[in-house]
């Protein structure tokens, strides 16, 4: 199987999706001629024309609103929001409109829009180029929230999102765009929405992590192994609807769980995962469910490395759970 970066894998999913389905169109700021600020859509305008790869005015509410209208009228828009930090101007269109169209019309109108956006820290982007807003969208009923961490998953999940009937917030861990490589199946490849990936098997503790934290979790698991602790790493891939079955199956076996994310800790998605685990695994738990997360501060510029969870911080939580 050929190797690709996360960026190439997402690019290929877009290209193949557009080639397969003439209803798929891309829209966003700089996605056309420039090919996106991360060059994700490079070459797509040349190949598919400016009617399918659309450079829009700078207005995120307008972009999502227009995409909703296009989806109502039979298109399959894939929106790029230049950075997740700039999705807030479109919050009303996403929360009040996109997420609710099916419900409020009892299925008469649906808006299968995919909103792709580079998310998370690790690029020295400071507060406005680093945030992880997944919890806002998980909290909004009607949205599917996806965050892949491997190239194969990124390609397969984006293909599923583009072929699905529900709106999807597709968060891309931009720190991994060019830093991870992996095997990616050629041609049509789908990873089902709502199925977790077991990134590493283990027996003593379950570590749940997504996005750019998934490789951090794997490193922490390596450190733990050196101390004789066998850690299972689960990457949910789809944050919502969460594959709770895979997580519960693992925790019931290991008896311990740590959840890891880079978004701020309080009311982060980890809180929901922890609550679900304690509801379902209570009698199997040998230790409290711990969270390792970003701090409840704005995302800092100079101290980014201190803010972001690293394998040592994760290891400390693993040790605490083992020693409880």
């Amino acid at each position, binding site marked *: 199987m050929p190797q690709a970066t996360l960026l190439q894998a997402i690019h290929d999913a877009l290209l193949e999706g557009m080639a397969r389905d003439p209803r798929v*169109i891309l829209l966003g700021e700089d996605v056309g001629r420039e090919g996106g600020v991360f060059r994700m859509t490079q070459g797509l305008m040349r190949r598919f024309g400016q*009617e399918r790869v659309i450079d*829009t*005015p700078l*207005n995120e*509410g*307008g972009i*999502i*609103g*227009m*995409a*909703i*209208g*296009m*989806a*109502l*009228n*039979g*298109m399959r*828009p894939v929106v790029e929001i230049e950075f997740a930090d700039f999705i807030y*101007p479109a919050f*009303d*269109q996403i929360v*009040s*409109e996109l997420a*609710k*169209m*099916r*419900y*409020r*019309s*009892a*299925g*008469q*109108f*649906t808006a299968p829009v995919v909103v792709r956006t580079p998310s998370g820290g690790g690029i020295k982007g400071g507060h406005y180029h680093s945030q992880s807003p997944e919890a806002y969208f998980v909290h909004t*009923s*009607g949205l*599917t929230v996806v965050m892949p961490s491997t190239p194969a998953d990124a390609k397969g999940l984006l293909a599923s999102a583009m072929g*699905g*009937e*529900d709106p999807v917030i597709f968060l891309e861990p931009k720190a991994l765009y060019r830093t991870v490589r992996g095997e990616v199946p050629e041609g049509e490849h789908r990873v089902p929405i*709502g199925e977790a990936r077991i990134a590493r098997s283990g027996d003593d503790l379950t570590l749940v992590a997504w996005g750019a934290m998934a490789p951090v979790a794997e490193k922490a698991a390596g450190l733990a192994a050196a101390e004789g602790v066998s850690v299972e790493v689960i990457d949910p891939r789809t944050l919502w*609807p*969460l594959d*709770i*079955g895979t997580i519960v199956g693992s925790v019931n076996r290991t008896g311990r769980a740590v959840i890891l994310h880079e978004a701020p800790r309080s009311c982060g998605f980890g809180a929901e995962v922890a609550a679900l685990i304690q509801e379902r695994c209570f009698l199997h738990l040998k230790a409290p469910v711990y969270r390792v997360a970003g701090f409840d501060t704005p995302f800092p510029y100079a101290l980014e490395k201190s803010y972001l969870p690293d394998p040592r911080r994760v290891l400390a939580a693993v040790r605490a759970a083992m020693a409880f």
Partner: protein
Amino acid sequence: MDSMISVIRPDGTADPEQDPGLPEEDLLLLYRKMALLRAFDEKAIALQRAGRIGFFVPSAGQEACSVGAGHALRDGDWIFPSYRDHGMALMRGCPLETLLGQIYGNAADPTRGRQMPSHWCDRSIRLVSVSSPVATQLPQAVGAAYAAKLRGEKVASIASFGDGGTSTGEFHAAMNFAGVFETPTVFFCENNQYAISVPVSRQTAASSLAVKAQAYGFRGIRVDGNDVLAVRKVVGDALARARDGKGPTLIEALTYRIGPHSTSDDPTIYRSAEEVAAWREKDPIRRFAAFLSGRGLMDDASIDAAAAEAKEAVRKAVEVVEAAPPVPFESLFEDVYAELPWHLAEARDALLAGKE
């Protein structure tokens, strides 16, 4: 862009320069729909006062806007209405039972009681689901029109909204996108002088709302919103231009909301009885009746008969809708996603178990 187009002159005759020249049967249809809309509103308010429904958004005084615009639409056109445009729905053939069912939120509601009253939709006439946040439908109307344009279809979209809506970011976004992409979109602003209590002078310092179109690179027109023939003409022309690839238009229809903003509002707090009385004199239905009488198409007897017929149609529809059972409570969890996910299935099962 500050002058206003009218058709029906003070003496009840039509200005031949602007008259859209509708056939007699269409003129009578317009009248009947306006009368039906007035009867519908009066009944809905009475039902709310009697405690049989919870809430309603009346459109009395603005019938010429929604009915006139609705008549200009064709099959295939998309409608992105505000909560005050049930006249468009009625004009396009949406059954009274659909609107009333939505108000009652029972099994007669095709949208299963999902929203508060006055938030309807009807897929069969491409009338997209109304939502409460003001003006969110505007960029969506641009998107639907753009999709049609990209496919080479000769259809247009209309987005309707109030004067308050022109202050939102969505208005700016939609107008700007429509201008840039030259979409077949008609922005239909019903300037009824107030956004709840706030007068239009607090929405803008511009000389009109129509003039705003200039900044986006397309036409803005002001029309007499209490003159159904003028609305029909201006909206009809704008839609025809849109379908012909000549781009968007902003229409400002000058009108007045005779009643409260909603059944929860007390307009005596913010406007004088004299002001309301002056606008009552310009009632769009009476004005159109005078025109039709002048043309020999109606007389006092047929005007009374139309009102009675409208009342009876509404009464019958209320009877049907009131007899419908409540929405089944399992439907609470449906239509959130295309398929029921596990967490909603669990919540449903727990609720069902609790009922046993």
